[in-house]
């Protein structure tokens, strides 16, 4: 817990680095910050083309449906991909100044969260175009964000620490994430999962639970399944406890091995 307390103490650094990250991402490109919006738009176009035209999904307003699940997935997958190398790629910082290293993975997760939040108006606009206006149940978003944030922090703390010592991890993860993406009901509705397995799949995979919850509040406009969210929260907390101990047991060695 002292790990998270330090993170809070260094929140000024956290904000400064996150702002830097967001501003710096597209520095040197002609369109600059506009890419933050353009990227998910283009991606949406690609997925909409592939899945609604070629795969002929039987979901009404499929593009919107997919966008609802895809954006938080991007937050997750980019956080995990970027967060894993956030320590191993920052030799300059780690070997020259003293600061709590958990700030670095946290910065990746925060800046990816900002990207998600910035793309939300796009998503809502698309919903309006499809005739799906947000209802009050959408106000549950912060709860789901908090839980997904918890889960992501737990995973990334562990992977970022381990990747300093085992660089294989970043390569393994890239492929795992590609597989994981198709296990999560993003491009297909959860109802496409055979009923026998559906609850188990969603209860065991927090990302599945979160994705269904986003779809519930934004697409179906109903309450999410709170039992699934509770299971995801439980898994996240357990993971976080384990991840903190992995991180803490290794942190003294980061500066030597990075």
């Amino acid at each position, binding site marked *: 817990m002292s790990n998270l307390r330090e993170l809070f103490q260094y929140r*000024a650094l956290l904000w400064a680095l996150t702002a*830097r990250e967001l501003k710096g991402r597209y520095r040197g490109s002609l369109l600059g910050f506009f890419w933050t919006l353009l990227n998910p738009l283009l991606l949406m176009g690609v997925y909409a083309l592939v899945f609604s035209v070629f795969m002929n999904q039987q979901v009404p307003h499929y593009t919107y449906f997919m966008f609802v699940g895809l954006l938080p997935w991007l937050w997750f997958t980019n956080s995990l991909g970027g967060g894993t190398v956030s320590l191993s790629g920052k030799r300059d910082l780690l070997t020259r100044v003293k600061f709590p290293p958990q700030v670095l993975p946290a910065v990746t997760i925060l800046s990816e969260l900002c990207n998600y939040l910035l793309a939300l108006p796009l998503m809502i606009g698309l919903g309006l175009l499809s005739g799906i206006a947000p209802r009050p149940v959408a106000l549950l978003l912060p709860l789901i964000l908090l839980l997904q944030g918890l889960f992501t922090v737990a995973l990334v703390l562990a992977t970022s620490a381990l990747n300093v010592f085992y660089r294989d991890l970043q390569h393994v993860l890239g492929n795992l994430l590609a597989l994981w993406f198709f296990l999560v009901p993003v491009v297909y509705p959860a109802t496409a999962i055979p009923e026998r397995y559906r609850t188990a799949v969603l209860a065991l995979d927090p990302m599945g639970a979160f994705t269904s919850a986003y779809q519930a509040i934004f697409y179906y406009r109903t309450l999410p399944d709170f039992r699934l969210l509770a299971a995801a929260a439980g898994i996240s907390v357990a993971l976080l406890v384990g991840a903190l101990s992995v991180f803490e047991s290794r942190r003294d060695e980061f500066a030597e091995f990075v």
Partner: protein
Amino acid sequence: MTELAIELSGVSKSFRRTNVGPGGHTTFKSQLVDWVKGRRRPPARRLQVLRDVDLSVPAGATLGVVGQNGSGKSTLLKLVAGIYRPTSGQVRISGRLAALIELGAGFHPEFSGRENIYINGIILGRSRREIDQLVDSIIDFAELRDFIDEPVRTYSSGMYMRLAFAVATTIDPDVLVIDEILSVGDEHFQRRSQDRMEDFQRRGKTLVLVTHDAGTVEKWCDMAVWLDQGRVASRGEPAAVLAAYRSAIAARERNGPLAAGPLEIAPPPEAAFEDAAPEGSTSS
């Protein structure tokens, strides 16, 4: 007794050797293969860099650290700066510490000088508002007014060090640790940075300088430490420490480059590498 700014007691530091050659690197794969084959790796070879170092620097003093390459000076500095944690022993620092280690202070190459000032200042424990107050004097001191909004990757090494020095000193730490920096910059900047360090000393701040230059130690330091093969070979008055250091170097040179063994004053011979496994047993 005056308050201590830096206190090291019984500090040792060893590193696991990262051998990138065949059989040296640990990966998931190699660990998995070892595990499947039921093979246990010999414990990693460790490199003992510092042994049992005791050091007390009273607040307001300036300490010079001398020693040959590989004597452990930089490791000592990183321990004092809190970047490394000692393998055994304790390091205590009182007050805010800033360190100028290697080239630069942890700047991000893609970000402008101004952004790096803020990030560095925050890492050194200042608030954004405090840095707002200081940023202009930092830019002026570094004489980078025209370049401050350019990414620091475009800076020359002189500009880079000027910025690092300006940030670290303007942020006003209680303890300032500097690795071979006084020679950085042209004469003009050297004069200005020396003025600033004198000001630092006058205001009762603690300085640690690591250098190869005996003149620097004589000019600046109240006390000196000579590190030899990770041990404190001599400490005390700068003049006495330097004399011992110089005569040992001279003796070593007389004996030829091959006889770079321990010195008369130094502790008895001891292998620098502690090899826990018999030679040649490293698995592939």
